[in-house]
């Protein structure tokens, strides 16, 4: 990034649970150590006002839902050299995307009587609106992975997340295979780096980190069918964090 000068970093939220920012704070003393090496340009959890206008790196979590969200994202892009999408909402769509697979107009009317004037766009990842330089996926992000990536970016070292499935870390941990036990685990097609935290706790991977590049869902799909899961059940899981439209960009009429 920048040589001989502390890089200016911003951490910004669009619409989301803000859990990825919380994960960064959860680094505790290690976050304070990282903060020594940077200038914080904007981090609303800790700072009263943004201190600068231009950022070397901006981390953006959340979904662009309101018009103001979208404008803020575009503005941040213009003012930042390097933009990192932080977490499932920013990288994939996250849970808010579930409505894309439903009748979103009916969903809006169900929640609000005065629905006029409430923005209700299809939920898209940040990359739909602006150029994204890197994604740190997960719901929430893995704070250890964030720390590694952030340290490298601050030092000016480009980072690529290894394209390994969740199964890779699950096997290293010698977990019993949930898929083989008959559970609908998406581990084989989902990008690892989370430490397989869900399968390690007997909870099937539900895809919050998004699919591996060139993931072929066919094998897994056949396996799940053979285990007695209906296509609807599989589809519901794939929709949870917005994996479905990434795997099936133009959904086949009959999956």
């Amino acid at each position: 990034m920048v040589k001989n000068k502390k890089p200016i970093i911003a951490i910004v939220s669009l619409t989301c649970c803000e859990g990825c920012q919380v994960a960064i704070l959860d680094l505790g003393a290690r976050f304070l150590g990282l903060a020594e090496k940077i200038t914080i340009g904007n981090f609303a959890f800790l700072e009263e006002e943004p201190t600068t206008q231009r950022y070397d790196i901006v981390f953006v979590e959340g979904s662009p839902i309101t018009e103001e969200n979208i404008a803020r994202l575009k503005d941040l892009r213009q003012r930042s050299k390097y933009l990192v999408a932080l977490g499932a909402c920013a990288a994939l769509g996250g849970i808010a995307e579930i409505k894309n697979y439903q009748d979103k107009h009916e969903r809006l009317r169900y929640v609000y009587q005065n629905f006029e004037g409430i923005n209700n766009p299809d939920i898209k990842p940040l990359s739909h609106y602006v150029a994204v330089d890197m994604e740190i996926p997960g719901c929430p992000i893995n704070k250890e992975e964030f720390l590694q990536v952030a340290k490298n970016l601050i030092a000016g070292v480009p980072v690529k997340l290894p394209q390994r499935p969740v199964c890779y870390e699950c096997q290293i941990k010698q977990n019993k295979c949930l898929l083989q036990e008959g559970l609908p685990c998406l581990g084989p097609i989902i990008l690892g780096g989370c430490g397989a935290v869900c399968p390690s706790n007997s909870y099937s991977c539900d895809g919050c980190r998004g699919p591996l590049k060139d993931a072929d869902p066919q094998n897994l799909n056949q396996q799940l069918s053979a285990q007695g899961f209906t296509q609807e059940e599989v589809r519901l899981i794939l929709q949870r964090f917005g994996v479905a439209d990434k795997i099936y960009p133009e959904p086949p009429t009959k999956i």
Partner: protein
Amino acid sequence: MHIKIEHISKIEGYAGFIADIADGKIKKVRVDIKEGARLLEGILRDRNIYEVSHITARICGICPVVHTLASLKALEKALDIDVSPTTLLLRRLMMMGQIINSHALHLFFFSLSDFLGFNKDLAMVKQHSRRAREALAVRDFGNLLVEVIGGRSIHPVTPTIGGFLKLPDKRKLRHLFNISTKVLADAQRLAELFIGLKYPYFVRSSPYASLHNAKEYAFYDGLIKTPNDAKASPTDFMKIIKEYQPENSVVKRALYQGQPYMVGAISRLNNNHSQLNPHAKRLLKQAGLLLPSLNPFHNIPAQAVEVVHCVEETRELLKRTLHKSFDVNDIAEQKDLVETKLRSLKGTAQATAAVEAPRGALYYFYEFGGNGKVVNCNIITPTSQNMARLERDLEEYLPSLLGRMTTANVCDKNCQDKIKMLVRAYDPCLTCATH
């Protein structure tokens, strides 16, 4: 005169403040919320009851535990499923972790700088490094407690209908118990700092509500208690309060008997202070708070007292948990039971449940069919209950700020800082409020 604060930092979610004043009269006061609508209650419809608690956890990255547990409690109540004593102990421990980590964050990182006059927390951390270490140690303890039981501190993995997918490692629970002595000392120093601060004098009349439980200072379960000792079940209380949506607002408000009311730490303290644990009680006495307090700024020292109470409670609960031998039945091998219950359903099942979130009572209502799919759902969060009260408070507080102004027609930095301070005292969570 028009007052506008574009963005109030150090709260969860994105909000500003606007007020219109004409002829010395306040016309309009509004917390201007800029969160997008994620339509949680809408998107949960037609989804499976096994997954909805994982989805609702994502309402809030600061308090995912309470969203998970309130959601599970409502589902279990509708299915008439009782959880085991061990499950109850572990859930109550998770609740303690949640209150501790959320309060520690709000107290030290969001609130303290208002009183010490810093606008950058990192500068404050440098100057008060010992205080910062103590606050972080307390917060880390809360996080670790949730992580050991829930598998992860943000969006816990293990809680499920009827119990847990996996039980915690007892060695890790023992470790938590071992470090809790030091954490209790840190928590007390943190609390002493906060009860020693000078809070603005702003007393108004307002109803308040919280869970109340005859057995303990209520967080996980109880009836809703309001002034005059009135008590109602969560189901009834959800009918007593009226939720409404101001025009153009994505955050609904709620009224109790037609009035704005307050939930959260100060409301719990008002209702239940006699049930505090000993150290918390001593600190409350030291604070000299006269209860019931009708000063919303006292929500801050109330949180500080609660942190100490919750660390003490954690120690007791850990002791009891460590004495228990974990049984495979505590692991929710309950899928068959849930399926049987679903199959026997005639029509739909429905129930309401409540827990005390860090910011106040949180309500979940579900109705679902025999196919396990959600038909109807309603979630009322603490901040959406507090929002009408906060706006009324701002309306009542503003004249005293304007009266002190030297030049008319300007809400200067000091005036704006006081507005932000009152907003932050409520510890609002706008991502929860909007959901």
